[in-house]
């Protein structure tokens, strides 16, 4: 079975949010409401239990022609965020019920019939993707349209995207395509384009990478995401020391207690 991936190219995104709508339609997620957040045209600010695709609006200085905008208007970029489906996934490792699994397509999937809503995956995700739906009780995130992939279909967001900003395909092919696309854009004069794919971190690479203009930090993409299991060794060592201190302390206290005051 082929390992699949998303390549989300913000240089092609027009900020229409069709991916958000298609995702909600297909997966039957409730609407987030019509409120604006006051941060550009962003409705939800982040991914969450009811937002599995999220279009970010990064406004910059006035820069004629940048991103195709009219002269005199602020320049802006759009980028459709999604669960990164990490190579080493913090949520999957943390899940105590085995509800979170790796699918045959390489995606990270929460089985809704197993999750009991302990919310530990929420604090284990270095990208802030997973969230517990307090009304429902369980944790939710992008399923990578596991059901559609099973039937040989593209995920809903990639199908709906009108500009092919969201590409879906084989992981290795898309990674290659992403690198080539960046080179091509740079050759065209877009010097500040880069691909976000933190392969050098303990996350070990992601299955949903992004081509962005400017610093990925402006899109809340962390420069060095860490899978929380890297802290386990230090933590359990400390726990062993602490347990030894308790046992030793109690033994000493009660042995010495006989002569007590």
């Amino acid at each position, binding site marked *: 079975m082929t390992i699949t991936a998303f390549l989300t190219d913000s240089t092609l995104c027009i900020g229409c949010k069709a991916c958000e709508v298609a995702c909600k339609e297909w997966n039957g997620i409730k609407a987030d409401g019509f409120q604006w957040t006051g941060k550009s045209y*962003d409705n939800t600010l982040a991914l969450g239990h009811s937002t599995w695709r999220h279009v*970010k609006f*990064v406004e910059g200085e006035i820069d004629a022609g940048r991103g195709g905008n009219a002269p005199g208007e*602020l320049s802006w970029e759009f980028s459709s965020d999604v669960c990164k489906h990490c190579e080493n996934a913090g949520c999957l490792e943390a899940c105590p019920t085995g509800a979170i699994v790796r699918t045959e397509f390489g995606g990270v999937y929460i089985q809704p019939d197993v*999750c009991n809503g302990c919310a530990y995956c929420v604090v284990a995700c270095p990208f802030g993707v997973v969230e517990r739906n307090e009304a429902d009780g369980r944790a939710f995130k992008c399923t990578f349209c596991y059901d559609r992939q099973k039937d040989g279909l593209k995920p809903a967001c990639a199908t709906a995207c009108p500009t092919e900003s969201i590409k879906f395909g084989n992981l290795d092919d898309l990674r290659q395509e992403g690198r080539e696309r960046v080179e091509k854009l740079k050759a065209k004069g877009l010097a500040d384009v880069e691909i976000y794919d933190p392969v050098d971190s303990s996350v070990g690479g992601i299955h949903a990478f992004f081509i962005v203009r400017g610093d990925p*930090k*402006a899109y809340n993409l962390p420069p060095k995401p860490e899978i929380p299991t890297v*802290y386990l060794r230090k933590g359990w060592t400390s*726990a062993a020391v602490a347990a030894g201190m308790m046992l030793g302390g109690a033994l000493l206290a009660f042995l010495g207690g006989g002569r007590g005051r």
Partner: protein
Amino acid sequence: MSEIYVPDAGGHLREARLHELRREAERNGRVDGHGIRAAGAPLPPNARVDARASAENGYYGVPLLKAPQWKWEIPFYFFTGGFAGAASIMASFAKLTRADHELVRDARLLAAIGGSISPALLIADLGMPSRFLNMLRVFKFQSPMSMGSWTLVAFSSSTAGLSFLDLTRRRFDLYRSGPGLRVLENAAEFLSVISGAVLATYTGVLIGATAVPVWNENVGILPIHFAASGMGTAASLLELRGHQAPALNGLGIASAAVETVVGASIELRQKPVLNPLKKGKSGWLTRIGGMLAGPLPLALRVWSLFAGGRRKSNLRKVAAVSAVAGSVVTRFAWVQAGKASADDPRIPLQLPPAPASTEQIASASEISPA
């Protein structure tokens, strides 16, 4: 056509605007001017620097991580699991050194009480409490939550069994019923000590091995911190029950000393990642909890060593109340600090702390013309 329509003004207004646009399109074949404009979009050119999406500010300063969604049950469980685990160790060692029989019985009871409240608290916090048994579907070394669930199963059952034995022993004179029960009791006791030691410490690993910066930064001290807190509470609760064994005061001194060192190490380390432990609501909770669990009971207990009679036991009782209160506050403080830490995107984005305080920027933007 330069009117700005604010969507919050009501649905009819939006609909009216849409009809207007349709009529204009029919009439002219094109539409000039704006559609609906969102409040705050695009950002005004004089928007504060810290209100923008940029390499220096992240995405409008919006949190990158998700804050822990645990309610009060989880920090309170850290407290109950902590003293219960410590009490089981104390019960066993008190028995081993042939200490007061009543002390052994009460320590076992304390462990059993903590061991039965703890799972109830954990289950109450689940989004789907009816599925709590799913915790026992898998055994995952790499998940502290999974390890903790299994530990709790072992602890709750062994401590409940031991206390049940204590409560029925006198009535049925069980020691005369043969060596089988004694073997069973020793096995349960061994299990309660091992699982108790894990229970009182693993919660530090549980929150330390997460993406929350202030927690994983302290993963090396959290288990020791929580173990000391649990030990101090168990000794204090037994003292408040009326026990005056010097061993309890000794353990109280040791745990208050460890808590003092932990508090000092937090205060002395100057790192932006530790700010939630020093500033705001979580900072206050941390400091109050730290004082109540560390220096205050330490001083009172050391003083009690040189006092006599009634004053000695009164000093220890005040120290005990302080240590128990400190332990509760400390656990809530750490969860609160985790929330504050997850809300600050500057640490995961590796950005330096905001150059000026928010108040200063706010007043500066008030001066500049809009």
